[in-house]
């Protein structure tokens, strides 16, 4: 009896602690329940970097973290997955498209200088195209249209345009001034409704920029600002900078920016360039209302499921069933408190795992009570039947739980985010159910037997043969 008393005290303390935990520490909700966006970023090898190593992945992660911080999302989660993926979770993000654009771009900023010879060559070709176009117009408006000549002329124009586009990439040469030399970038309004991105270089960047602008000033050759190998702005440097270049370490990219795109570029530049290209491989966005609906539904399902199991147990197993029910409620409280304490993030499949585990948690009780009934029918006394019910059912309970853990472990190690949540909640639930079935049910049942009015075998096993009843009561 002494042992039962102290166990009962332990259970009471645990239950109170569990309730306090549940009230004090709410369980964190996954993105599918609170609404938000989850992106899986695939890091891809480039021409220079053929294989993605841990170093590249970490570098990409740092840049992604910088950019996410710039987005102003509270409590983002950024983690690497496998060898070449990064998982980004943005709870409650307002504009998932913006996040996608900002995170998806490499943002390699590169300042280039226009090559004089190539420029001259292109100018020459452009003049030729102009005259060919003039020729073309003449041919087309002539009274007798010479279709052959028109076609030949057209082919010439196309060939020259092609030549120019091919040269375009060679038109600008790299100067060594890149996004790495940036200290800061910010969107600023310019005249009218357009926006620009103001840049601030570090010391070395300032020098390089001054040198570059000094070279170009007054020559008519352009400065090329390239983002991910595409020109975004190609300004001409004025004559007045020919002596010193543009000093002070500041520059401004004007182009066809509006507020949003200027902000996004500034954000990307501030976060730094990605060392390798990335591709957004998976995006899942769930609206907050949908998440709330899911929670609502899960609560219905959980309450209904729990009630059905509670009713079934009392109807089928009578007094032990009632005791199993008390254990089951304790089970639910303790498991939920464990989630809160361990910081388990609850996803929709996670909730499903929890509800499922309610159905599984009574299994141990079913095994024990069936065994108890069997012993009673075999003519053993009530106390001995209950004792051996617990004792003999234990190996079945352990074996069946271990197999469930094996499956959960496989799910946890090999599964992705959502799947992991399910595996974790189910595994924790199964572990907790062993504790409640063996400790709580047993303690309560032993206490019940101690009360004379509850010491009737028919409360434990209906339709027991009359001869056994008398024996069982002793």
């Amino acid at each position, binding site marked *: 009896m002494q042992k039962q008393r102290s166990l009962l005290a332990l259970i009471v303390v645990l239950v109170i602690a569990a309730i306090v935990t549940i009230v004090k520490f709410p369980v964190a909700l996954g993105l599918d329940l609170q609404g938000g966006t989850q992106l899986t970023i695939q890091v891809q090898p480039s021409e220079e970097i053929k294989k993605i190593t841990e170093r590249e992945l970490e570098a990409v992660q740092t840049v992604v973290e910088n950019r996410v911080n710039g987005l102003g999302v509270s409590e983002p989660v950024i983690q690497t997955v496998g060898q070449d993926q990064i998982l980004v979770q943005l709870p409650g993000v307002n504009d998932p498209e913006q996040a996608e654009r900002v995170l998806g771009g490499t943002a390699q900023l590169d300042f280039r200088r226009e090559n004089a010879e190539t420029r001259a060559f292109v100018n020459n070709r452009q003049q030729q195209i102009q005259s060919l176009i003039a020729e073309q117009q003449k041919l087309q408006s002539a009274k007798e249209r010479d279709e052959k000549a028109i076609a030949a002329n057209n082919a010439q124009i196309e060939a020259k345009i092609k030549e120019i586009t091919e040269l375009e990439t060679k038109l600008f040469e790299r100067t060594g001034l890149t996004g790495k030399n940036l200290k800061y970038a910010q969107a600023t309004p310019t005249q009218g409704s357009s926006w620009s991105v103001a840049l601030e270089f570090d010391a070395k960047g300032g020098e390089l920029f001054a040198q570059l602008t000094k070279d170009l000033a007054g020559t008519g050759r352009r400065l090329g600002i390239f983002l991910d190998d595409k020109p975004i702005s190609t300004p001409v440097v004025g004559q007045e900078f020919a002596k010193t270049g543009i000093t002070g370490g500041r520059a401004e990219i004007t182009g066809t920016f509006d507020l949003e795109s200027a902000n996004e570029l500034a954000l990307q530049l501030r976060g730094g360039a990605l060392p390798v290209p990335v591709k957004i*491989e998976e995006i899942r966005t769930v609206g907050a209302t949908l998440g709330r609906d899911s929670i609502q539904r899960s609560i219905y399902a959980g309450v209904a499921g729990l009630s059905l199991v509670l009713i079934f147990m009392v109807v089928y197993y009578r007094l032990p069933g009632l005791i199993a029910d008390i254990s089951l409620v304790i089970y639910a409280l303790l498991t939920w408190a464990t989630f809160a304490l361990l910081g388990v993030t609850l996803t929709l499949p996670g909730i499903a795992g929890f509800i*499922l585990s309610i159905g599984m948690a009574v299994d141990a009780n079913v095994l024990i009570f069936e065994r108890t009934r069997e012993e009673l029918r075999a003519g053993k006394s009530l106390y001995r039947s209950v004792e051996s019910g617990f004792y003999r059912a234990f190996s079945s309970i352990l074996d069946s739980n271990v197999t469930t853990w094996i499956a959960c472990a496989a799910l946890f190690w090999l599964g992705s985010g959502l799947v992991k949540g399910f595996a974790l909640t189910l595994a924790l639930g199964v572990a907790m159910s062993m504790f409640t079935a063996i400790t709580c049910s047993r303690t309560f049942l032993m206490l019940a037997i101690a009360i004379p009015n509850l010491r009737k075998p028919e409360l434990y096993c209906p339709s027991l043969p009359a001869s056994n009843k008398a024996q069982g009561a002793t």
Partner: protein
Amino acid sequence: MRLNINKQRSLWWGVSLVVILAGLVAMGISWQRYGAPLRPSLDFVGGTRLQLQRDCSKPENCAKPIDINAVRQVMTERGLGNSSIQLVTDERGQQGISIRTNTLDVEERTQLQQALTKEIGTFDPKATQIDTVGPLIGQQLLSSGLIALLVSFAGIIIYLSLRFQLDYAIFAIVALFHDVLITTGIFGILGLVQGTEVDSLFIVALLTITGFSVNDTVVIYDRIRETLKVSPDLPIDQVVDNAVNQTLGRSINTTLTVLLTLLTLFIFGGETLKNFALALMIGFGAGAYSSIFIASTLLSLWRERTGGQSQNSDQLSVESE
């Protein structure tokens, strides 16, 4: 009620075989139709799914019902005519659309959403669900799912051969294969009949089935081992018959309590959890059946043939009293 497990074993096996064959035929047909044994969802083949709901708090926004032809028109104009489009009405009677199409990048998607907004009204961003999955993710999911399945099979074989014996473990795995086959087979049939798709949660369901369905088998094995210890001279088919019948209430009730909670998940769980709960119900049902009728009968047939009763020395057994 007493079941003649071993006498009627051809009946029990026949029932299973018919269901499994029907499933295999369905999977064959869907292999020809969809290039996969089950109808794969976005999770496996990649693509974009937009679930949009109109914002009815804005005046006039929900005045007209959504015209699905207008939606189809917008899709066709963008060269996405092969997309599947569905009208969705939720419990509050609000109308929305669900579109599944090829993978769209952020620009394409934004443009499509703008075009749809122009055509049918403003959408509520809080009630929007957008999933875009690249082809890589699907392969990853499939391969890691299959590996997880194999790992858990191997783990269960090892554990059961330690706790029982190797042949016990092997027949338990046969029963597990049976459960997994029946579940996939029925989903193959459902895919053909009502277009049910399998997603990543289906793989989770299969793994959970392997973990849980073996429970009933373990309970029966436990009893077989116990009986053999007490009376080692009893013929094996009688031992198995007794064991199954003595534990029948347990097998049924443990499955029943779980089915009760799954039923509530199936009813209230919403779109995501509905098929998950269904797969688990089928799998657990098949699991109870295979424990009672398949694993046990195979074990007694095998021991009959090999006369392996003498080797019933148990390594680990809980001694009673």
